[in-house]
């Protein structure tokens, strides 16, 4: 037997799973879920943490369900185990329901953008889009701590609807689930939008808005954020 036989496997025994934080970013293709996961991962790496990322998207370039797993800490698998995600943040409410239902742990956080992106299944009349109230109460039955936020509206106010992912990222940061410094996240954003001052400014503002909105909801003692009044369909 050659000398390295046992070294290869034993050398990287890692500390226990308690040190792992699992976050999933859910959305629809084109909303920036994967970009958000990369910002988070770059920040974690900058703070000296271990990180694994996995992205899953359908065959289509746009319009399908997209989810990005961000696993921070000592892990080998890039994909979160079902019922073990610490937080699911969603750029689209139905995708939040879909992913949180599968992956969120009891007591985990679900942060949902309230702006729906209707699937073609709804438009052709073959499915009914659930109301925000139904989505929230379904997840609460699974012991999720649900927060809702009009990320698309806040992003538009910040200057660009596409920045809704940074609103959500701000919201995630405000929860304190991920032990990453704000400075590192902002640095990752600066790196991403280097040389594009306007986009950087819009996204920084979006991040700040999302952070304050969720901080207010959590700090205000409200377990569930304000629901939007309209019930789609």
């Amino acid at each position, binding site marked *: *037997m050659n000398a390295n036989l046992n070294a290869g496997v034993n050398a990287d025994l890692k500390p226990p799973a308690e040190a792992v934080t699992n976050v999933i970013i859910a959305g*629809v293709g084109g909303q920036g879920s994967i970009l958000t996961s990369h910002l988070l991962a770059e920040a974690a790496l900058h703070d000296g943490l271990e990180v694994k990322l*996995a992205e899953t998207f359908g065959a289509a370039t746009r319009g399908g369900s997209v989810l990005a797993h961000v696993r921070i800490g000592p892990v080998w698998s890039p*994909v979160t*185990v079902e019922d073990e995600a610490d937080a699911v943040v969603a750029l689209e409410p139905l995708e939040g329901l879909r992913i949180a239902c599968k992956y969120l742990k009891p007591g985990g956080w679900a942060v949902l953008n309230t702006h729906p992106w209707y699937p073609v299944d709804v438009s052709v009349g073959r499915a009914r889009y659930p109301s925000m109230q139904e989505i929230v109460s379904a997840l609460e*039955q699974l012991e999720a701590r649900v927060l809702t936020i009009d990320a698309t509206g806040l992003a538009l106010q910040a200057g660009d609807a596409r920045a809704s992912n940074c609103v959500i990222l701000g919201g995630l940061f405000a929860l304190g689930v991920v032990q990453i410094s704000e400075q590192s996240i902002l640095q990752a954003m600066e790196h991403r939008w280097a040389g594009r001052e306007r986009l950087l400014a819009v996204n920084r503002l979006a991040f700040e808005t999302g952070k304050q909105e969720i901080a207010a909801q959590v700090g205000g003692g409200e377990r569930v954020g304000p629901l939007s009044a309209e019930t789609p369909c």
Partner: protein
Amino acid sequence: MNELSTLQQGERILMLGNEAIARGAIEAGVQVVAAYPGTPSSEIVEELLKNAPQAGFYAEWSINEKVSFELAAGAALTGARALTAMKGAGLNVVMDLFLTLPYTGTRGGLVIVVADDPDAHYSSNEQDSRLLAQAANLPCLEPESQQEAKDMVKEAFTLSERLELPVIVRSVTRLSHSSGVVRTGPVERPERELGFNKHWELPFRWNVYGPPGAVEKHAWQLSRMPLVREASRQSAFNAVRRGSRPLGVMAVGMGAAYAREALRDMGLDEQVWLCKVGMAYPLPEAHVLEVLRGCERVLVLEEGEAVVETQARLLAQMHALPVGIIGRCSGPNNGRWVELGVEPAAEPAVQTYGELNARTVRKAIACLTGAETPANPERQRIKEQIQPLVIQRSSTLCAGCPHLGTYWALREALKAAASPAGKKAIPVINGDIGCYEQAGYGVKGQEPAPSPAARKRYHSKSPYDLLDTLYVMGSGISMAQGQARSGAADLQIVAVAGDSTFFHTCMPGLLNAVWNKTRVTFCVMDNAWTAMTGHQVCPATGLTPRGEVAEVVHIEDIARSMGVKSVEVANPYRVEETTAAIRRALECSEAAVVVARAECILQVVRREGKKPTRTRITEACEGCKICIQLGCPAITFLDGKAGIDELLCVDCGICMQICPEGAIVMEDGA
């Protein structure tokens, strides 16, 4: 991220699996790179193309995998280090040379990266390329992490040169499309003597027929096998960790990543043996035998087919070891382990289709150790209760996609079509691979066509259930000819393909139809890009893969030069024009081609920016839902009326042309 070629040695960088593979090639001093894009492999050569000028090597997108593999092989014969990368299905396209090149071997390192897609995330099958590595008798490395992906690709070049054989590195979606931290190594720039030597080391080395002949050359390859097995034995990518119980896990590729985490999380690190296999073919026999001798039962965790499992079983049999090997071929039945071939009712320890995941791996390990898997039936019950709310999100074409116009026109043209026998024709639309294949995905919430009788009416309510056959690159145009020649008289036969697919494998099929005078309508949707895999260039783009301006290759010119008499070009954003063109093609008695040409809308919007939407739905909307049948994701239907999603709509104007009430208008631009 900084460009891969500018990274210094020893940097810690978050890399996508495919980026890590590309970095491995750069570190190995690769000289020639060629590939055809295919998810989940495309980023490998995308990255290498970006880095080629700076790092000083040649890279290209080729017309198809066959060309790219043969090109890379040609480069390796001159002594250059060459790499080709492809998705699992791409390997099928290269099979001819793939099974023959090993008889002569290569001179420069030749590395074939194949990214398989268990769970068929982006593919029409779940094939396991390691079976083909076995068929070709070529060594196959399989990484478990991004770091290992980089290191293995680098090592594969060295190995290839030492063995004088091509080496395969097998990735899977979960590795290629996930990211992890990679520590970079030094970039080698070895001095290599490039040139062509007809009799390099052996007579007529690069001519499989040349003396002494193909059989002798096959014997030469087999004579290398002891060297290959020794390379597997010595590979640092294999390792064994002993456990206190006579139970073992043999884990390969991503299976190893899941196994390590599951063993830790289940507190079994000290108890269960772990044999990490880095070379999936041929197996590192010493490592495997150590585990098979030390254990009473060994669970094999691998992505795809039972490739390592069957090799391990063979080894156990050859050495008459009493160990039980479990995985995809055996499983528990009433407290006993049984072979599925003997008792088919038993469940395999590892599911025989789909991909591994942390949950199935934990379950299989619990199965091995006899532990209980914790279950929470109440939570499961709530989840099932919630499921009806979790409606499907069927995949669609993009808002404003030119294919929406083409498919609308195709449906309209087919409504009026008569069969060759003069009766109302049953249309058969043969699909192909590209964005337009989504016309075969169906709307998941929708019931499939209930009966053959219902199928006779052309009742499709969306473009997403249009395609009647859909398999692989280039199969549509040829299958169509079989239908036409089958004797079925009431069919109206159509094939569709995109521009990149046309160049990839449709040209022989079209020429075949012309030569054999077979009646078929071929609709080529030319959007100027290989869009689905991430907008790579193709001959219709007007650019080389390296960004130089190139002559646009016009599909209508190729069709005419092949002898197609009826060739028309139509703009899919003009629905009537395209419908008329397809209608004329359907009336032809021989092969007819319609090129529906408009650039991919995503590329147009990327270049020109998204402008505020001017499309409006007026009070005239009666809620007839005709526009919904267009299948455009920017058209919504709420409270009995159509609506426009302004975040998505790009003012393509197709819906305006199809609304029977004229209720969709475009406001004047500012």
